[in-house]
């Protein structure tokens, strides 16, 4: 499923990343050794060593077990049964892909940018699973479930909490602006806007998410 989510994101954003997320997945013990907090079901672990960037993706055994029944069938089923689990996995893959992609272009990434992009990615991935007749209603449901019906872990620091809320606010504004393309089923415009925003750098991306400017 990790590979399928990566394929899906790459198809949406129109690029191919040589590094495959599933190869970088580490277990709980390795994640702890690499400095993982163990507080979330998914965590991207990044270590800069000189010019080199080392990545590891932690996905909790509980999360992987939850998603195992949906491995071989069409991914559409998981949206009905475990949207939250699927989105957690998509978030981990999104983080991995975004860091790998920006590093390849010699850019650094802020944590807020990373989180905001992941929120957009979750919306885009789920949206395109059901692109077709009736996608408008599905998109509205996604906006509600991904951006309004959210809760945050109690153990977050004040700064972390602010970052997640801000990422949610910015990405929600951007995704809401995409609704016109969704309702008209203008895939060309939807992909155009998603790809343009994806390639913007930190400040420009956050401004674009917030105001479209």
């Amino acid at each position, binding site marked *: 499923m990790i590979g*399928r989510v990566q*394929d*899906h994101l*790459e*198809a*949406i954003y*129109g690029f191919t990343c040589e590094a495959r997320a599933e190869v970088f997945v580490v277990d709980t013990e390795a994640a702890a050794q690499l400095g993982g907090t163990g507080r979330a079901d998914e965590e991207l672990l990044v270590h800069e060593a000189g010019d080199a960037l080392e990545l590891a993706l932690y996905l909790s055994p509980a999360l992987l077990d939850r998603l195992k029944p949906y491995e071989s*069938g*069409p*991914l*559409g*089923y998981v949206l009905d049964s475990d949207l939250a689990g699927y989105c957690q996995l998509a978030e981990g893959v999104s983080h991995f892909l975004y860091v790998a992609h920006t590093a390849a272009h010699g850019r650094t990434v802020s944590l807020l940018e990373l989180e905001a992009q992941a929120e957009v990615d979750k919306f885009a*991935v789920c949206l*395109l*699973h*059901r*692109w*077709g*007749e009736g996608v408008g209603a599905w998109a509205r449901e996604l906006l509600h479930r991904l951006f309004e019906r959210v809760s945050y872990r109690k153990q977050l620091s004040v700064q972390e909490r602010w970052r997640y809320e801000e990422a949610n606010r910015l990405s929600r504004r951007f995704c809401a602006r995409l609704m016109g393309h969704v309702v*008209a*089923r203008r*895939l*060309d415009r939807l*992909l155009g806007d998603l790809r343009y925003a994806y390639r913007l750098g930190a400040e420009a991306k956050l401004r674009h998410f917030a105001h479209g400017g």
Partner: protein
Amino acid sequence: MSGLVASLSLKEFFKSLLGEVTGRQRVELAEVTEFYLVNLLSEFAVTDKLFTREEDGRKDHEPLAILYHQALQQERAERIRTLRRLGDVSLYTAGFFSGALQSGVVGPDYYIQMGGTAYGHVAELTPAAGFAQVYRELCEKFRKVVEVLEEISARGMVQAGPSGALKVYEAWVRTGSDRLERVLLDAGMMPRPKGQLVN
């Protein structure tokens, strides 16, 4: 966009898809030729038959020119087998990987030329055999059959999920192909122009 293939077997699935697409594209094929194509699609779909194994275990495509050259050196029975493989590989590759071939060193036309010629030779070498008419028909209608396989491939990709559907969409944007547009319209990826009916 995802959907399970509700078919009893892969062969039945391809038989029904082939009938649907040849009907839509108005390509007439003898029943025995359809039978041959269904077998070809089923075998290539579930096996590594399209590839050869390198000494280090890697899978690779045999260059068509080498296959052809090899056929010229062989006795009749071996030659028929090699030429038939050349035809099969060319047909499947041109039909299912046309997008990749567009940006490759040799384009789809090379595969169409080589494959059609190979089937023609097989038909000449087996005039008395029952399958001679199959090879003759595949030689004469090679390009049309490639177009049928392109549509089968596109419909399969759209059914397989959103990343496949987006690849078909990108191919349509790149080529403007009416066939791909129809596949996307049928899958609901784009709204039908007002007044256009589903056929």
